Every structure is written in C-alpha cells, then in structure tokens.
C-alpha cells in the first residue's frame, strides 16, 4: 500500500506540468511527499474504522446468513448439510410464515400510517406560537426516552383481557370487553398503539425541524395572495417537507417491519415467542428468532432473515416512490390552475 501511495503522489505534479521534458521530480522532498499523501489518503483512513467495523459486524453476518440459509443446520450440530434452496422452497409453503408476514404488514400499516399523519399534525401545532416551546417539544419526545421494555410491560397490563384498564373503560362506557390477546386484529391494534406511542413524538420533532427550515417569505407571499392557513399547509408546507417525509417513511418502514420487542412483551406467556395462542401477533422477526434459538433450526431461520431483508428493501423502495409522488403532486398541479 505504501508504494502505491508514493507513486501516486509522484505522478500528480507530473500531469499538472506537461511542458518541460523531465518535470522536477527531485523538487518534492520526502516531507512534501508525505504531506501530499496525507492530504490524499488520510480522509480514507479516518473513515476506515466505520467501514471495518461495519464489515465485521454488518456485512459479514449478512453474507454469512445467506450462506447458512443454504444449509440444514441445527444449533448443536456444527457441520450441517447442504440443501441448496430447499429452505426457501419450504418457506413459501409454510403457513406460519405467511401468517407472520400478514401480521407484520398489518401491524406495520396500523402503526406507520396514523403515526406519520399525527406526527405531521403535531409538528404543525408545535410550529405555532407556543409559550415555552422547548417544554412542549421535550414533552412529545418523552415516550421515546422511556425504556421500551417498561413500556411493553405497562401496555400489556393496560390491554389485559381480564383486569386491564382499557377493557375496564370500555365496559364503563357500555361497550363489550375485547380479548386483546385472542382477537387477531385487536392484538394488532394494541401493539400498533404501543409503537405509535413511542415513535410519534420522535417523528414529529424531525418533521418540525424541517418545517422550521421552510423560508418565511414563501408563506408571506402566499398570504398576500390570499391563501388561508390550511391551503398554505397543503400547498407549501407539505411539498417542501418531501425529503424529510421520505426519510421518516423509510426509517419507519425499516423499523416497522422488524418489530420484535412489542409483540414479544405483549404475549401473556412470559418470555414466549409464539405471539399469542395461535400466532395471532407473531411477527416475522419473532418467528425468525423462535426458529433460530428455540427450534434451533439455524439454516431455516437464515432463510427467513434473508426473505425479510429483501422484503424490507422492496417495501422501502415502494414507499420511496409513493412518497415522492404523493408529496409532489400537490404543488405543481394546483399552482398551474
């Protein structure tokens, strides 16, 4: 590596000065060469630790998982047998996999959509003239600061079928009690509430930061043109929030599809990975974890991991395209009218 540094460093000035036959090679002292090399290579050296660590704990596991997914390997048998794409074939006809996939997508939709709408609304409210703005902003962030495990235990208690507070209130208001553990859709709603509670404030702050960055004069110009508050929100604020919204949507897609702790803690059976009595709320990650560490079928679990990986990329892409479209349609069309 050092030799390539030297030759490169020597070459640069020779290109810069074409005219003389043998450009001044000796003009560069050892010290100068070193400083040229420093300028050229140091940045790579400084960012190298990230890529080295990423390679070891990020890239290598991903690739090794792909390799493992082609084996039938139990945790305690070190060798494993090569099965090619059998794991993936089994996965496609595995009803539990499809159940967990539907659960994951359902919980994801129930949490992400309301979450982002409410987050944008909250950000708009926080963007108005409030007394002690920092206090309010910290306030919406509080659920994010609280420990996820504590939240999980509290919400599992609130949604307890027999002695839970939510059912108590429902009964008080004259509604039927809901078995939040047994009913598949109800369990998804309960888990989505947990996710929304934690992440809405966090996303609201990100959106708020983007709102603050929108130049005031655009709004003022629209005001002079007679645009009301809601029209300004939909025609100015939303389109200008596009890059931020895309970021928020993609990060919540990645997080939402990997949801694990909330459904695990929601299960009445402590420590269970079943996601309810008949997998009502078992998500893909829970199923993957159960397959790897309870059933100890590492090969199959790796296949699940890879399918999830691909799925996240696909859905994130779809979301990216959708958000770009949705957030951009508003401004130009209306502006043309």
């Amino acid at each position, binding site marked *: 590596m050092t030799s390539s540094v030297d030759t490169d460093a020597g070459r640069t000035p020779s290109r810069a000065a074409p005219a003389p036959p043998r450009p001044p090679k000796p003009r560069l002292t050892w010290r100068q060469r070193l400083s040229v090399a420093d300028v050229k290579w140091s940045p790579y050296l400084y960012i190298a630790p990230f890529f080295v660590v990423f390679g070891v704990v990020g890239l290598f596991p991903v690739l090794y998982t792909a390799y493992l997914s082609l084996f039938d390997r139990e*945790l*305690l048998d070190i060798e494993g047998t090569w099965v090619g794409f059998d794991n993936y074939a089994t996965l496609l006809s595995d009803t539990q996999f499809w159940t967990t996939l539907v659960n994951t997508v359902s919980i994801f939709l129930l949490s992400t959509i309301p979450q982002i709408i409410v987050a944008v609304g909250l950000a708009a409210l926080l963007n108005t003239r409030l007394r002690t703005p920092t206090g309010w902003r910290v306030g919406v962030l509080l659920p994010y600061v609280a420990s996820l495990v504590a939240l999980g235990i509290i919400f599992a208690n609130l949604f307890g*079928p027999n002695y839970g507070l939510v059912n108590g209130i429902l009964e008080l208001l004259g509604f039927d009690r809901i078995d939040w*553990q*047994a009913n598949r859709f109800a369990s998804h709603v309960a888990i989505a509430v947990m996710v929304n509670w934690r992440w809405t404030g966090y996303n609201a702050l990100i959106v708020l930061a983007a709102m603050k960055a929108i130049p005031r004069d655009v709004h003022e110009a629209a005001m002079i043109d007679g645009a009301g508050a809601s029209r300004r929100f939909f025609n100015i604020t939303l389109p200008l929030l596009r890059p931020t919204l895309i970021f928020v949507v993609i990060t919540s897609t990645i997080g939402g599809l990997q949801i694990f702790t909330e459904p695990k803690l929601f299960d*009445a*059976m402590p420590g269970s990975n079943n996601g309810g009595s008949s997998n009502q709320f078992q998500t893909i990650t829970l199923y993957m974890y*159960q397959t790897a*560490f309870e059933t100890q079928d590492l090969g199959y679990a790796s296949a699940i991991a890879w399918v999830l990986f691909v799925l996240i990329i696909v859905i994130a892409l779809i979301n990216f395209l959708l958000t770009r479209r949705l957030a951009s349609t508003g401004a130009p069309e209306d502006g043309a009218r």
Partner: protein
Amino acid sequence: MQTRVLAGAISLTAMVGLTACGDDGSSSGGSGDGDQIELTIGTFTEFGYEDLLKEYERLNPGVKITHHKTGQGGPYHQQLLTKLAANSGLEDVVAIEEGHIPDVLDKPHLFNNLGDIGPEDVTPDRWLPWKVEAATAKDGTWIGYGTDIGPLAMCYRKDLFDAAGLPSDPEAVKPLFETWESYFEAGDTYAEKTGKAWYDSNSQIFNAMQNQLETGYLDKDNKLAMESNADIRKNWDMVTAAGSRGQTAKLVAFSPEWNNGFKQGAFATKTCPSWMLGVVEEQAGPDNAGKWAVTDAFPGGGGNWGGSFLAVPKQSEHPEEAAKLAAWLTAPEQQIKAFQKTGNFPSQVDALSSPELLGFTNEYFGGVKVGELYAAQANKVEKAQYKGPGDGKIQENATSPALQAVEQGTKSADEGWQQAVDAAKRIAG
C-alpha cells in the same frame, strides 16, 4: 432488563476468559507460587450458592471460584446451548434445569460422564433414583448431579372451599385430590355453587397430568407420540371438557393477569410444586394470609415440576476439579443450607430425612410443616418420565398455547388439539 443481564453475563465471561489466559501465561513463565486453579460456575435465578462457594474456597486453598449468575432461566439456557454449539465460553460447572435436560441428554458427547470423572465416593444412591435417571443419557453417560427438585402437592383456598360447602381441613380435602376424576368432580361442585373457577388455567393442569405418564411427548425412539399415545389425548379431552364447564380461570401462568388472579381469588386450587409456595405468598400478598393451605395429596399420585442439575461440559479445562466442586455442592449438607436460604427443595435421600428439613414450617400457609409434607410427596414419585429432545418446547410452544386458544374460545377442543399436534410436528420434525 433481560438483555442487560445477558450483556453483563457476556462481558463477564469475556473478562474471565481474558484473565484466565493471562494467568496461564504467567504460570507457564514459572513464577512457581503453587498451582492455583480457577474454576467457573454458571447458575440462573437463585441457587443459594454464594456462601457455599466461599466456604469451598476456604476448604480448598488451591481453588479460586468465579460465579456467573443469570437472572432468568430462559436466556441462561439459550446461552448454554449456543456456547455448547460454539464449543467455547462455558463455565466449568453449569447448572441445567429439568425442562432443558432432555435437549442435552441427546448430545451426551458434549459432557463429561460424572460416573467416570467424579469423586469415587459419590454414587447415584446419594439421590432419589428418579433424579439420577432424569440426567442419565441413553448411552449411560451420567450428565448431571441433582441439586433440587419440585415435588408436587395441591394448594387450595380454605375460605373459598368453606364458602362452597367443600371440606377445607388438610386431612378432609384429601379425597377430593385423590384422582383426576375426583378433582374435576369437586371442581364441578365448586363452579356450580360459586360461579367461579376451580383452577388457574388448563395448561397448568394438563402439564401435571402429562408428567404422570410413563413417557413424554416423544416415545423411547424419540418419535412424536401425541397421536400414538392415547393417554395424551385422553388427558387433553378431560382438561378441555372441565375448562368448558367453567373450571378454568383462563389465566396464563406467570402473566400479570395471573398474578392479579391470586389477589382477586379468581381460582380455588393450584398445582403446587415446593417452590410455588413462595410465588403464591408473593402474589396473593398479606391481604390473603391464612387463606391458602397446602396438603400432601395430589391427583394421580404426585409428580415433579422443576429442579436442576450441575454438569461439567467437555470444554472444561479442569473437569475433575469441576466435578469435585459439583459433587461437594450437591452433597446433602450443602443442599440443606441452600434450602434454608432459598427454599429450593433438596433431591438427596439423606437430606429428605434430615431434621432441619423435616422441621421446616411455612407461616403463610398456616404454619404447616412443609418440609415433611414435600419430603413425603418426593418419595411418592416412582420413576422419571422418559422425555425425548424437544419435550419442553412442545409443552411451551405447542400444547400450552393451544390450550390457551381453546380457553379463549378461538378454537374448539378438537381444533386446538390439531393445532398442538401440528406445532409439535414442526418442533420434533
């Protein structure tokens, strides 16, 4: 919390690994200050070994012991299996819980045979025969010395029995807990008179019945026996029928709702291994003091739920010293001390007849001599059930959830059975 405990355990192990390496280096350098041996021991929850380990160090000046404690059994055993697979990182002496023993009995080559490397004077007759049987692999490898056991008795609410017109005296209730038929019959009477549940959940009853069969969910050839062993289905039908007649409180064991059920008096009886007394006391709380009682009768004879073993994995560098430590810890004298500290019931024959144990009483349960009571229940167990690999997982991830689904009303008893069989096939196959 769980992850924090895990992370702590991992970093601890890593540190110990490092220091161990360092020591090896220096001793090979020939400093010559005696041959100090470092032993490590891994346990979960509370074994009551802290003072005992210090005592052992005092008695054996050449030995230094490091104790790794993990808060919960689940993550502990997951780590145990992972480290067995990695063939490194395990302690010299590891604790293994009864429910997880079948998984390692299937891989005896990963453990030392205590019959070969253990002290010569430590023979199987130190323990109850079924305790030794439960830790002996098919090829004869004796994997673990027994620590504690969980003999089963029946706990019940005296006041609720009185209210339903049932006998409530510990002697007079015994006929109700004679067989499962008499148990469910009494449950019908109770449910009819009070409109309340008889027991906490279907699975807590079913598991006890299942444990009384000769073989578990797998037969002796390790084939899934759920469809071939008619007794399993018979028990299933009996429990789900009783549950549908209002005998179950539908509370998942150890869930927050279950804890609440103790406070509310949601059920009148509880299958009670020795260690459950502490759980009942904690959950029912001082408000219900004096209402709970326990009797030395159990439908179908008795049984065992819980208890652990100490094993020495092959990866240990000092297997003989480790076996010596494990043998010392599981001697009757030491286990009696652990019992006095934690209530873990000893599995050693001599400990069961020691005056310290027999004289032990429990105030919360009306001053009953629980030591004597559970010693009697332990002696009623005749032999260990044969459990194939995955037995515990079938109970946790196949039958228990399916029984819960039947209680929730989302599945009929037949559909629930089918769900359990399908899930069990996935686990066993």
